[in-house]
């Protein structure tokens, strides 16, 4: 009844949608299978995209031609560039989103994508023939064939939800779990594990007293995620901040004996970085308050997401304690917070292409690999989609190095180090943070994505225009000589010492605390040179000039250490024969089969002396 496809993507969350879009846009006939077409691109947790390190990832996905950036821009109700007071590596875009508009936009964009079909059904297993994955089996008893399959099951594999002492099967509030896939994959030889995550309660905004909270408005001149200026953000809604108190903590503690977290019913490992409120007051008993972000769910709803108050305590405890938070005295709850446990497959079973080593043709992306976060899921999705499509044409997989993209860092971490708790991206995971900025993801990734056929001509032209502008403005500032008197007002404003003789505009810009905006304002000749260029060009030039030394240092390190990533380890090398390797090193290397010395060096359990053995063995 159903035709066969090049690529089948199972799951329509952030990973699945990006995978389906990428495969289809590359020209593969693609089928997106989801249990519920009503919630394509659901934000299961907080209604926000981006943030520190995550915002950089959304920019990278966008630069590759993915949809997450455009969807987020179109559905944004607030935009903030976080960390503006720090250096450019830390500037991180973040949006609050209209949850329904976000999902609706995803569905519209996917429906407008050629080569992409949809099918609403549950997948109960994959079809493996002669060791290769060639399709999926569904709840309706169908077998749909494909050349490759991408699994993005999120929290649905044997999903089990907990609220206090109650537990029920399901992957998300109101949606049933997916059974059978884990069992089949384990039978095929995969290792599986269990993780958990949680969400906070949602409340009725009409019942809150916002005047008892701090207001957190969006940026005065909001930016956007996408390098394409399709959906500028025009209106914004503020969020609010309030705090828990010792009284709130005491009330929460009263429910601990009925908490699945503390009575041992929850087995999975939760994220240390995004703990539940009961976790926080248990582990940081000396802290007498915790931040609570009050986030609107959208333009046309009064529903509020109580970020920072994630919990799986009984609903009565949740409500009683919450009502002691300033502004929440009369809060009405729409739905309680809950924890969800789900199966994942330790990602060390993957290749860097996200294809499983055990079953060619089978790809994993998103929470199934032990990550947490929409952005982490989306970037795996786009890579899995690209590589699943390319494999159907016998093309080499596309991977990124750690100095090329956060996506490269994330996938390399997963594949070489694995993860035992939900993996979230941090900027400190990247060795070359200054190179992987949110402002240059287009320069880093778009040309390659354009060559692949994923990034549109429109994107490439936008990049070329930006680069031309950057080059011309840099030349302009290099040539432009500023006399001391002209520079004085701008320097005084920046509390920088006056010039003794005329210097080039570029040199003035490289001083600490001097900004191009201030120079434009006070120096007419600078204003003139800058006038033809847009804000992206000005920002890019300012970053390049001000942080030149740091960028050069990291680039130098990346070049030197990157050499290890070019030293290939033969695929047929039998690590067990290298008796000089430590026992653990031999096990880990045989298990992970690193392609390069660089990958080997990052596998935990491979010691420096193991690496020396490999180095000398490979004739270094």
């Amino acid at each position: 009844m159903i035709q066969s496809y090049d690529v089948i993507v199972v799951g329509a969350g952030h990973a699945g949608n990006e995978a389906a879009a990428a495969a289809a846009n590359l020209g593969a006939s693609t089928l997106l299978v989801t249990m519920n077409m009503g919630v394509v691109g659901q934000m299961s947790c907080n209604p926000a995209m981006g943030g520190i390190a995550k915002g950089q990832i959304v920019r990278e996905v966008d630069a590759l031609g993915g949809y997450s950036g455009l969807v987020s821009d179109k559905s944004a109700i607030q935009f903030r560039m976080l960390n503006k007071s720090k250096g450019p590596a830390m500037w991180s875009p973040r949006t609050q989103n209209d949850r329904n508009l976000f999902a609706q936009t995803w569905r519209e964009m996917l429906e407008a994508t050629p080569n992409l079909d949809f099918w609403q059904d549950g997948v109960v297993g994959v079809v493996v023939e002669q060791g290769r994955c060639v399709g999926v089996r569904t709840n309706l008893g169908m077998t749909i064939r494909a050349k490759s399959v991408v699994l993005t099951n999120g929290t649905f594999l044997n999903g089990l939800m907990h609220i206090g002492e109650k537990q029920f099967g399901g992957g998300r509030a109101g949606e049933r779990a997916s059974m059978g896939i884990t069992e089949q994959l384990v039978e095929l030889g995969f290792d599986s594990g269990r993780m958990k995550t949680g969400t906070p309660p949602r409340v009725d905004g009409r019942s809150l007293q916002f005047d008892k909270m701090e207001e957190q408005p969006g940026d005065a001149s909001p930016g956007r995620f996408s390098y394409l200026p399709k959906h500028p953000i025009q209106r914004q809604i503020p969020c609010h901040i309030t705090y828990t108190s010792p009284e709130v903590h005491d009330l929460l503690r009263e429910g601990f004996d009925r908490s699945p977290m503390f009575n041992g019913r929850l087995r999975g490992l939760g994220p240390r970085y995004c703990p539940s409120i009961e976790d926080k007051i248990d582990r940081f008993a000396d802290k007498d308050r915790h931040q609570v972000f009050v986030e609107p769910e959208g333009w046309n709803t009064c529903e509020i997401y109580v970020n920072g108050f994630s919990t799986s305590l009984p609903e009565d405890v949740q409500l009683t304690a919450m009502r002691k938070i300033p502004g929440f005295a009369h809060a009405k709850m729409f739905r309680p917070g809950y924890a969800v446990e789900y199966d994942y497959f330790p990602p060390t079973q993957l290749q860097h292409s996200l294809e499983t080593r055990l079953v060619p043709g089978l790809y994993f992306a998103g929470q199934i690999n032990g990550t947490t976060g929409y952005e982490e899921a989306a970037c795996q999705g786009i890579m899995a989609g690209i590589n699943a499509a390319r494999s159907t044409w016998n093309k080499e997989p596309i991977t990124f190095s750690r100095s090329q993209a956060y996506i490269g860092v994330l996938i390399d971490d997963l594949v070489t180090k694995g993860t035992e708790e939900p993996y979230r991206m941090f900027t400190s995971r990247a060795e070359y943070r200054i190179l992987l900025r949110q402002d240059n993801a287009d320069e880093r990734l778009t040309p390659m994505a354009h060559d692949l056929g994923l990034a549109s001509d429109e994107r490439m032209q936008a990049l070329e225009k930006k680069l031309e502008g950057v080059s011309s403005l840099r030349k302009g500032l290099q040539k432009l000589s500023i006399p001391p008197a002209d520079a004085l007002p701008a320097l005084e404003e920046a509390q920088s010492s006056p010039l003794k003789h005329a210097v080039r505009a570029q040199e003035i810009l490289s001083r600490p605390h001097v900004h191009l905006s201030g120079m434009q304002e006070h120096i007419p000749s600078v204003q003139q040179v800058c006038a033809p260029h847009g804000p992206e060009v000005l920002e890019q030039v300012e970053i390049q000039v001000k942080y030149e030394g740091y960028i050069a240092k990291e680039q130098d390190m990346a070049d030197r250490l990157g050499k290890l990533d070019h030293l290939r380890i033969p695929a047929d090398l039998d690590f067990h024969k290298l008796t000089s390797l430590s026992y653990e090193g031999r096990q880990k290397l045989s298990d992970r089969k690193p392609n390069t010395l660089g990958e080997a060096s990052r596998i935990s359990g491979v010691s420096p002396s193991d690496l020396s053995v490999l180095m000398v063995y490979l004739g270094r």
Partner: protein
Amino acid sequence: MNSPFRDAVDGATICAISTAPGAGGIAVIRVSGKDALPLGSKVFSKALNEINDRSIAFGKFKDAKGIMLDEGIALVMRGPGSYTGEDTVEFNIHGSPYIQREVMQALIEAGCRQAGPGEFTQRAFLHGRLDLTQAEAVADLIAAEHAGAHRLAIDQLRGGFAREINALREALIGFAGLLELELDFAEEDVEFADRQRFDDLLADLLKRVGQLADSFASGNALKEGIPVAIVGAPNRGKSTLLNALLGDERAIVSDIPGTTRDTVEDACTIDGLRFRFIDTAGLRDTKDQIEAEGIRRALAKAASAATVLLLLDVTQDSGEDIQDRIDALSLPDTAQVMVVWNKCDLGPKPNDSSLGLPSIELSAATGAGMDALRNELLKQHRANDHGHQLVVTNLRHFEALTSAQKALQSVRNGLSQDTPGDLVAVDARLALHHLGEITGAVHADDILGHIFSHFCIGK
């Protein structure tokens, strides 16, 4: 691929004569590798695998045809507890070059391979028995000719240096962790370390790294010899003094002024302390271009020496213009000057007490007063002995420490200028990288090759 390294990981068994080349009472041949016991048994009258670990057996040595070569002892040490981490046999045989050669030949015919330079130590490193600094210390230990160098090498071999570097790395990782915390959790409600804490941590790190880097000058002097320059006008007997100190006809001596045109140097050990004596061209105004160049070099050597011996002649010089002569050398403030009156067998020493410098009278020709000079040198430099403080003697370590120091200084400047944390972190990571280079926790491509090329065969 015929890299000798490859065998270490492939499992070739290696052998080498570990004692000094030539004839001796006893020679030691060492065999290491996974087949050391079976292959060794082929040249020995007893089955080595039946000998207990760390035990010795007496037996006969034979060649491939079964002809007896010698009698001696086999010491069996099984891996991974042996030096190399592999099964090892040490044969003690009689020290005739012929027997040594024949036993080696028999071992090679049995299937062993002649070890390359430093290969035993390299295997110890590859098997994780030594870290990089310890492996380097083994090379220094073998090369140590005097007590100072020996003690430095032993300290390093015991791992003290690596421990200090690792402790520094850990402190730095702790510091970097605080920096990163501020960056990645800026939006969250965590408490950050105050600036004072950052600065205290950094000051401590800088102090420790600085001390280690600074110890290189004296550490290297201890290892290579403390430089002592002999300077003076022509024909004062500088070369005679050098020869007397070395106990050797090292420099050419004649009555013709200006015989020494270039610097001549050699080292010797005085009571366990190593000195490197430098004979220089006589200082005078000259039109001879070659001699002028010699004098330029003499002045340069004097300027870089730890001690300068200003050599005067009791028959030619007075005590009055000594300060002028010293001033003419333009020495750095750190140089110690000693006035040495030569030819004291030919006349009395003029009075020079107004200078307040140590003053020695001696006769390099007869040897009179030489001990007084040696004692004065020891007195000066014993005080600089580092006792059991850690001292850096290796150029590679010194360079890495200097780079780390530079990066840490940038971190400090950055913090004091309120540079954003993500930029400060770049330098903190650089500093970590450089410290890691020392112990091998970070791999720079060519470290290994460089280190292992500095070993002699048999170790």
